[in-house]
């Protein structure tokens, strides 16, 4: 009799071999598109001008500069102020959406989420038109004071509001009605209930959204670039070092430092989420909200004010795109869309963006979903699976600017056999896929986890290879999640500036980059026009996706109806 030694393995059948091959392929793609570029930054930051190992000498040099500390304190001031403004606003909005009987909730929700369709440059441009030197309301910010701290803060509030809102809505929707009943029965008043029940339950949501907002602001360079004036922040500093002065080591060092807050926020959030799970017991009773006239009216007023402000900003940018010469000649024109006769990339930039967003959407969805599926549902190649899971959470903590910098340093190295990819559409797509990987992967994993874990075991017992089950069961069931991922990828790729600003070439210039360049060149109206196009394309795609999911769910999700 053969007594196998400990740790016996089961031989892999053909489908498991295929799965293992694909897993290694995906892991390799993440190593190439994420791990190696990040390693390249670290390498650069630690290497001196002479190409020798410099240790932390360059960090020390930069930390010694007063200019650096100015940027640090400015970045912190902007990020903290924005967080403190966004949080209460988003909380009120989220509470109104989840805990009141306010009318027209879907409308308010859609309005609050529109900033997601725009690059962070758009609010900056709108603010120029509202409060800038020629602004309609320039009296509010006399002497061009909008260019600086407050301009950045207002633009970032606009940009980060929907992110905070989504987290808080999720946190507030999981209230346990039993706790409120208990508190009321014990005689707790409205305020006591808020402090003892609502706040503790929403605590993690509040912290989580604060971290997200803080990180988004500190790594964003779109808004400060457009409206920041002389107010120097870290993200812009990286850009200036790399693009303006071609000082890669210095850019790399500041990039590494920029990674710190993002990584820190990510780690804190991760730890908190682990603790939050216990909060949601399976026996929680959903809270039923009852109409309460004064609360509902107040909520409507507050949401209308917030939503109105967001709308004014978008509308200003859109209006500026169609107005001949703000504010002197308000007649309408399409002249600002004549991109081909201006600097910045022309219409080609817009088509490039569409191409890039489409490719990112398709490739990203396939890659993320394939990776999540193989990692969750197969048992092949354990090492590759672990590697894939680990690499998938890293992009969340990496600012786009840093990733983009990694791409130049890695792909633009003549010694790299992949050098030919530098500046190509392929590199742009790969960079965008990586940049937004974590969020997409989370959506895919959540959807996959809802499927019975034994489907694959049943299929194996019936001698059906995994790809058949993937095609016939997993994909159809996860179709709504896949559409979500595809839409997210498209819109994100359309709007991103920071991830691509370092790696486009004149042939692959993108719409969001064109906005930046045209604004830089002083052609603000054209920049507004291009930003408007981006919003329009994103909105159109969202619409297409909504229709598609409605149609597909009618065709393929019939089984959901009981």
């Amino acid at each position, binding site marked *: 009799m053969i*007594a196998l030694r400990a740790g016996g393995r089961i031989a*892999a059948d053909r489908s498991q071999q295929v799965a293992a091959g694909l897993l290694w392929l995906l892991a390799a793609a993440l190593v190439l598109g994420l791990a190696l570029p990040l390693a390249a930054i670290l390498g650069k930051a630690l290497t001196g001008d002479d190409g020798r190992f410099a240790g932390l000498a360059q960090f020390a040099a930069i930390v010694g500069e007063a200019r650096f500390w100015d940027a640090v304190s400015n970045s912190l001031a902007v990020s903290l102020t924005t967080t403190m403004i966004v949080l209460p606003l988003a909380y009120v909005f989220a509470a109104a959406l989840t805990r009141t009987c306010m009318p027209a909730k879907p409308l308010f929700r859609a309005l609050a989420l529109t900033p997601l369709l725009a690059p962070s440059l758009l609010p900056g441009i709108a603010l120029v038109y509202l409060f800038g030197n020629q602004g309609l309301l320039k009296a509010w910010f006399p002497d061009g004071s909008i260019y600086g701290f407050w301009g950045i803060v207002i633009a970032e509030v606009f940009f980060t509001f929907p992110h905070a809102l989504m987290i808080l809505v999720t946190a507030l929707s999981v209230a346990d009605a039993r706790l409120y009943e208990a508190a009321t029965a014990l005689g707790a008043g409205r305020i006591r209930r808020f402090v003892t029940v609502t706040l503790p339950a929403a605590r993690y949501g509040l912290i989580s959204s604060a971290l997200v907002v803080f990180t988004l602001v500190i790594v964003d360079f779109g808004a400060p670039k457009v409206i920041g004036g002389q107010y120097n922040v870290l993200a812009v500093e990286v850009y200036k070092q790399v693009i303006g002065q071609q000082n890669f080591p210095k850019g790399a060092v500041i990039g590494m430092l920029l990674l710190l807050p993002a990584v820190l926020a990510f780690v804190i959030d991760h730890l908190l989420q682990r603790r939050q799970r216990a909060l949601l017991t399976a026996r929680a009773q959903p809270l039923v909200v009852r109409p309460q006239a004064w609360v509902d009216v107040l909520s409507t007023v507050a949401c209308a004010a917030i939503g109105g402000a967001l709308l004014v900003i978008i509308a200003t940018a859109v209006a500026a795109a169609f107005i001949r010469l703000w504010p002197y000649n308000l007649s309408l024109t399409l002249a600002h869309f004549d991109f081909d006769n201006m600097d910045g990339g022309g219409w080609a930039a817009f088509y490039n963006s569409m191409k890039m967003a489409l490719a990112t959407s398709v490739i990203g969805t396939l890659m993320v979903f394939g990776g999540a599926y193989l990692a969750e549902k197969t048992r092949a190649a354990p090492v590759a699976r672990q590697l894939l899971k680990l690499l998938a959470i890293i992009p969340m903590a990496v600012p786009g600017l840093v990733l983009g910098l990694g791409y130049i340093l890695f792909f633009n190295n003549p010694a790299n056999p992949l050098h030919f990819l530098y500046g190509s559409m392929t590199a742009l797509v790969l960079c965008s896929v990586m940049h937004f990987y974590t969020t997409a992967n989370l959506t895919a994993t959540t959807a996959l986890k809802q499927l*019975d874990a034994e489907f694959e075991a*049943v299929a194996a017992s*019936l*001698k059906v*290879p995994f790809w058949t089950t993937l095609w016939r069961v997993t994909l159809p069931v996860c179709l709504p999640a896949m559409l979500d991922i595809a839409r997210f990828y498209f819109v994100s790729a359309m709007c991103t500036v920071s991830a691509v600003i370092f790696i486009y070439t004149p042939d692959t210039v993108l719409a969001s980059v064109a906005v930046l360049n045209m604004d830089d060149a002083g052609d603000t109206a054209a920049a507004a026009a291009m930003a408007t196009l981006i919003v329009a394309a994103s909105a159109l795609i969202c619409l297409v996706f909504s229709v598609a999911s409605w149609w597909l769910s009618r065709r393929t*999700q019939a*089984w959901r109806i009981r």
Partner: protein
Amino acid sequence: MNRDWQATGAVIDALRVERVAKRFGAFTALDGVSLSVKKGEFLCLLGPSGCGKTTLLRIIAGLEAASDGALFMAAGDAERDVTRLPASQRDYGIVFQSYALFPNLNVAQNIAYGLKGRREDKDLRVTALLAQIGLPGIEHKYPSQLSGGQQQRVALARALATSPSLLLLDEPLSALDARVREHLRREIKSLQQKLGVTTVMVTHDQEEALTMADRIVVMNHGVIEQIGTPEEIYTRPANRFVAEFVGQSNWLAATSAGIGQVLLGDALLGATVTPPRPDGHPLELFIRPEDVQLHASWSPVEAQIVNTALAHVRKIELLGGFYRIALSVPGWGGQQLLADVVRSEFERLNLSLERMVPVSLPANRLRAFGPSTGAAA
């Protein structure tokens, strides 16, 4: 019962598990488990939660690799080593506790999932299987439109569709309510007998194991405590764990006193003591409540019956079809003794709390185990 395999003589086992062990890191989930399943047999793996039943079943299925040991399955007239064979190359059907029906496929598509060949053949097979499980005409329903019991049977039909030589069931009835469960026990058992398919079922419900199995494997903490027919397991449990896990039991502290004799209180009683113990060795006497006999009168005839004494009646409890009487026998050290008495018998006995009643413990049902939680060995 399906006992064809006994008549044929020296046929090989459908499945043989040889000293299989499974370790998860430092934790040992299975520790040298050996058993065999005969062709056509219905074997139940019975044990408390966490004892490793599912792990063993998954190793048999090839969904989990054994850390040690070997597995053999019958292939024609020979036996082949399947220890390292992937799940897709073993020949079995499986039903999970969750059923794992594909939610977006209708019943017919679910059942035909593993079938190959022409469409018409598949349809015929599906129709035949649905008739067999007693659910004709539900081909076009989706799983969410079926009751739990119906889903369970569809999952069974799917597992049987490819006519596997081995059927594995992991707590197939535990998600159902009591009445459906009882009904399905009979259904599954009779279908299994009709098809003669070798079956291994995991359960932690002793009643389920006793009513369905040809043989039961009682497991605890990753080892096998006893293998035997339901009758053997119930009437001749190998140790205290098995005796307590299956059915009700009385436990009386006693000491050994010669071959086939024990000292209980001041009385010498006849009992089955295996293996024999030195005199004075502490023992625990085991007898099932329904094996305790009560007598209507105390006459010289009763006094002659072995292991008989007078008992106080402490409590009378009606439990549906029978009464459970709590007794204490002064002559046997006054320990509490439970006796189950069917209603007709109860009326004849005319019991009351004021009167004493003669009680006997039949020597062949009175079994002695070593003390502590260990086995009788």
